[in-house]
Each structure stands twice: as structure tokens, then as C-alpha cells.
């Protein structure tokens, strides 16, 4: 009886050590895994030199349809499936549908492909530091950094066709469409960077954000469901930063921007997690005291419960 119990306890001990060893080994395995390959869409998009000023998009009034009788001009309207999304403790990401319509559509059917629609959802701009490691005496350590004063926390593009088929880089750049033209501003400490260096840092931010699925692109994500109605699905990972999101819809025909439409969407924290987050940042001292009290309470409760069981 006694030896059986002892054997049982030894089993528990070896299981605990086994679990711990597995954790360590799993950690090591994760570290060895190579970084995921970037989606092929990024390198294929050529980047114009930074010095070239973006030409202004053609004024809307001058664009006349080639047809003889002047048809009413097309415009685009859109909305999102959910305007307010609550992030709670068990939030594991969410899906959003953007749908819209082309007014005065001249397409005969959904398959005509006369129009190109590009939808960009961007999250509230945030400040961040990007750091780069290099090898110093055999160790990989952070050696250089660049501060960005504004980077969209989330940036998702969905389009009817690959962007380089939709419009020229100049047009895309002036509207901030595409991973190469994500609006980012550098801190003034970065003013001495050369154009290739700026591109390297920008690309790094996009690549890392893509890795976290905070930056996404779907080249065939927008589908027409009639001659004027279109829709697209987006997903937001659980790590998305809460705040105001802007959804911009661009309507193109033959590489020309016809119309844009902007709508908002809010991501809010709710529930216990919202409370914890607000508490930690608004009243850090009392949050610290509160955490200590929880810890003391839990420790004392545990010893009380287990001591009573033993007695």
C-alpha cells in the first residue's frame, strides 16, 4: 500500500519533469524553425524612387466617358458588417465583411470586369521602434533602431485583381494603396537615412506585421455579386490593437480612380480584460497594489485550503 503510493508520487514527479523538459524542447524547436516565407506579392511590386513626387490624380471633372451621350458618373458606396466590435478576454480574432455598390454601373454582369475595386482597412496609427540585430563578437544583438512616429497598427488590402493590374504605382502611391505605400512617418532622428535604408526599414515593418497577420493582402478578395454589388471578407487576429479603424473603398476603371468612399469601424475592449488594461495604464500604482493583494490572497487561500485537507 505504502510502496504503491510512493510509486504513484514518483510517477507524478517524473510527469512534471517530463512536461517541463517538453516545454524547453518545444521552445528550442520553435526557435529553430525558419521564418515563414513572405507572400510573393511583396517583392513583385516595384517601388519608384522616393524622390519622385507623386503626380496628382487626374481631376475628376476632366474625365469624360468616351461614349457619345454623357452617362452619369459612377460612384461607390460601402459599409461594414459590424461597426463596433468588442474585444473581450476570450477574443480570438474576428471576421468583417465589407460590402458596397457602384452607382450608375455600366457593367452588364458581375463577370464583365469593367471595374476594379480596392478596399483598404487601416487601424489607428501607432508609434513604434524597429530594431535590427547584427553579430557582435558572436552574439546577435540589437545594434540599430529607427523610431516611427506613425504606422497603421492594422492594414489590410483586398482587391478584384493584383494591384499592379489595377492602376499604376503613381496612382496607388498617391492614395496609399499597397504594402509599398503604407503611410508611415519616421521620427526626425531618421532624417539622415538614405532611400534604400528607408525602404529596408519600411519593408521590415511590413514583413513583421504581415507575420503577425496584422498586415494582410488578398489580391482577389473583392468579388462582384451583380452588376453593381460587391463584397469582401477581412479577418482581424486577436492581437489587433483596439481603436478606430478606417475603411476606404476605391473604384477604378482602366487604371483611373473614379470614386472613393470612407467608412469607420471601432474596435473596443470590453469586459474584465478592458478593466484590467485601463486599470494598468490609468492607475498604475493602484493596479500594482491590486495585483499584490490578489497574489497574497491566492497564496494564503491555497495554504489554508491545503492545510485543512491535510489535517
Amino acid at each position: 500500500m505504502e510502496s504503491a503510493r510512493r510509486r504513484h508520487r514518483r510517477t507524478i514527479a517524473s510527469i512534471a519533469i517530463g512536461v517541463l523538459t517538453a516545454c524547453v524542447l518545444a521552445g528550442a524547436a520553435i526557435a529553430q524553425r525558419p521564418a515563414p516565407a513572405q507572400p510573393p506579392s511583396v517583392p513583385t511590386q516595384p517601388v519608384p524612387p522616393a524622390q519622385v513626387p507623386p503626380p496628382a490624380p487626374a481631376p475628376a471633372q476632366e474625365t469624360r466617358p468616351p461614349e457619345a451621350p454623357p452617362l452619369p458618373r459612377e460612384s461607390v458606396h460601402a459599409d461594414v458588417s459590424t461597426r463596433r466590435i468588442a474585444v473581450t478576454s476570450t477574443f480570438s480574432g474576428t471576421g468583417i465583411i465589407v460590402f458596397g455598390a457602384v452607382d450608375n454601373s455600366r457593367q452588364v454582369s458581375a463577370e464583365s470586369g469593367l471595374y476594379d475595386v480596392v478596399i483598404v482597412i487601416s487601424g489607428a496609427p501607432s508609434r513604434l521602434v524597429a530594431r535590427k540585430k547584427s553579430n557582435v563578437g558572436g552574439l546577435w544583438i540589437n545594434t540599430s533602431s529607427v523610431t516611427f512616429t506613425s504606422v497603421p497598427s492594422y492594414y489590410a488590402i483586398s482587391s478584384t485583381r493584383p494591384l499592379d493590374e489595377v492602376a499604376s504605382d503613381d496612382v496607388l502611391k498617391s492614395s496609399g494603396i499597397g504594402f509599398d505605400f503604407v503611410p508611415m512617418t519616421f521620427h526626425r532622428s531618421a532624417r539622415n537615412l538614405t532611400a534604400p535604408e528607408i525602404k529596408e526599414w519600411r519593408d521590415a515593418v511590413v514583413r513583421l506585421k504581415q507575420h503577425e497577420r496584422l498586415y494582410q493582402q488578398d489580391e482577389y478578395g473583392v468579388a462582384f455579386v451583380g452588376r453593381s454589388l460587391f463584397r469582401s471578407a477581412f479577418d482581424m487576429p486577436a492581437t489587433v490593437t483596439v481603436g478606430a479603424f478606417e475603411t476606404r473603398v476605391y473604384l477604378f476603371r482602366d487604371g483611373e480612380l473614379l470614386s472613393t468612399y470612407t467608412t469607420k469601424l471601432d474596435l473596443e475592449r470590453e469586459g474584465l480584460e478592458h478593466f484590467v488594461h485601463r486599470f494598468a495604464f490609468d492607475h498604475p500604482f493602484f493596479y500594482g497594489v491590486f495585483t499584490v493583494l490578489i497574489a497574497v490572497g491566492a497564496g494564503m487561500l491555497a495554504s489554508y485550503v491545503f492545510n485543512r485537507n491535510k489535517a
Partner: protein
Amino acid sequence: MNIYLPIAEMSANLFLFIGMGASVGFLSGMFGVGGGFLMTPLLIFTGVPSAVAVGTEAAQIVASSVSGALAQWRRRNIDFKMGTILLAGGIVGSVFGVEAVKALRRVGQFDLFVILSYVTMLGVIGTLMMIESINAIRQAQSGIVVASRQRGQHNWVHRLPLKMRFHRSKLYISAIPPLTLGVFVGFLAAIMGVGGGFIMVPAMIYLLKVPTNVVVGTSLFQITFVTAATTILHATQNQTVDATLALLLIVGGVIGAQFGAIAGQRLKGEQLRFLLAGIVLLVALRLAWSLVVHPGELFSLTALGRP
């Protein structure tokens, strides 16, 4: 079941953290060690930012040491005078440590600093434990009993000024060594997310010559208050304490520690100490590996402040 951790800003499985708390709690219950030196690296391995791992672990150590400190207090095993001096030093050390964390984070070198500290500390402790356990296993096999260390000798500690009488410890020594020890341990608590018992206990026994029955209670008394102060300081200065994560680790930890304590009373220690030393060395190697091997991605992003 996934849960979103508000300060660590990551989504992870609830049971992963409870399981980690339970595993480390089991080992700490069995060996009577704090477990912070294993938990912080494990948290970093799972992707918790290292500063959040350190700040949150301080809160967990409060929970795991408070019940022990209370039990020792009931048995009158705490030298409050000695404990207060250690605590005063500890809080000073913790203030400096938290400021060091803040400064290192600002220049982006905190990860490197934590990993180097851990590689050094775990490497030394793991090696010493490994040697000790191998010797113990050999002795158990050959049946030789080693004579215990001689006590009562005076050393350089007794020649320092500012002497004080510690009635509970039956000592008349300078206040400088316990104060310095407290500062050092408090600094470690703040930068590494450990209680520091693994340094304080041997230092009190061999350097200060505090009687063994008072050592554990007095060090637990100091650890409880220093880690509580460290938690509050990290929360105010760095906003790196994740209460949700701390609670998960505490729940796992207290349950694991109970089973660990029961197992520790009945089991032969040498083999398990050998295994623990192996785990400690493995963690140290894994951390060192992350510094030496070419990282797949050279760049990293850190969010700055909130709008």
C-alpha cells in the same frame, strides 16, 4: 481555450500557463526553491515579452512565498531585525533594478541583458547542482557519510563597523553585510523576476552565520515584501505586470507546489536533483542558443506608448 492577455498583448491557451505554473510549482514545492528562475525563461520561450515575464513573475513569487512566510512566522522562525535590514536593502535594490529595466528597455537591450544574466546564473547553479548531485549519488552508492562543515568560525564579516545585536539569530555583527546582501537580492528580483532565495539562503548561512532554523523564515519574509514592492514598482514604472497572466501562474503554481511538497518529503532527492540540474542547464543552453544562432529575422518591433 484561448485567452487574451491584456498587458503581454498576446493570445494563448489558458491551460498552457496553468500547466507551466503547475510544473514549476511542483518542482519548487519538491526542492523548496522559488521557481522564478525557471518560470521567467519559460515565459520568454512562450513569447511573453521579457519585461512582462519579469514583472509578472514578481507577482507570482509574492503568492508562492507569502504562505511560507506566514507559516514560519507562526513558528517564530523569523528574525525581524535582520529581516528588516535585508528588506530595506532589498527595496533600494529593487528601485535601482526597476530603473535599470526601464533604461535598458529604452535602448532596446533588455532582452539581451536578461538572457545573459540567466545564462550566467543558470549555468553556474546548474553546474554546481549537477556536481553536487553526482557526488551525492556516488556517496549513496558507496555508503560514505561526509562530515558536516565546521561552524562558529569568525571571518571578515565580523570585522566590519556598525555592529548590531540580532537577538533571534544570536549574532552580533555589522549591519553592512545584510544590507548589501539585501540590495543585491532586490536588484536581482527586479531585473530577473526571481525571489533570490538561492543566493540569500547560502549567503546567510555561510557568510552571516545565521542559524539554519531562522534562515528560511527570514529570507521568505524579505522575499515576500521585496517582490511585492517590485511588483508595484514594475506596474508604475514600466506597466509590465500582467495580472491575468499572474493569476493563471499562481493557480497552477499553488496546486503544483502542494503535490511537489508531498512528493519531496517521500522521494530520494539525488536523482531528482540531478534531473533538475539537467533542466536548469538545458534552459541555460536554450537561452544561450538564441543569442548565438543566426535569427531568422534580424528586425523586431516594439510598440511605444499609447495614443
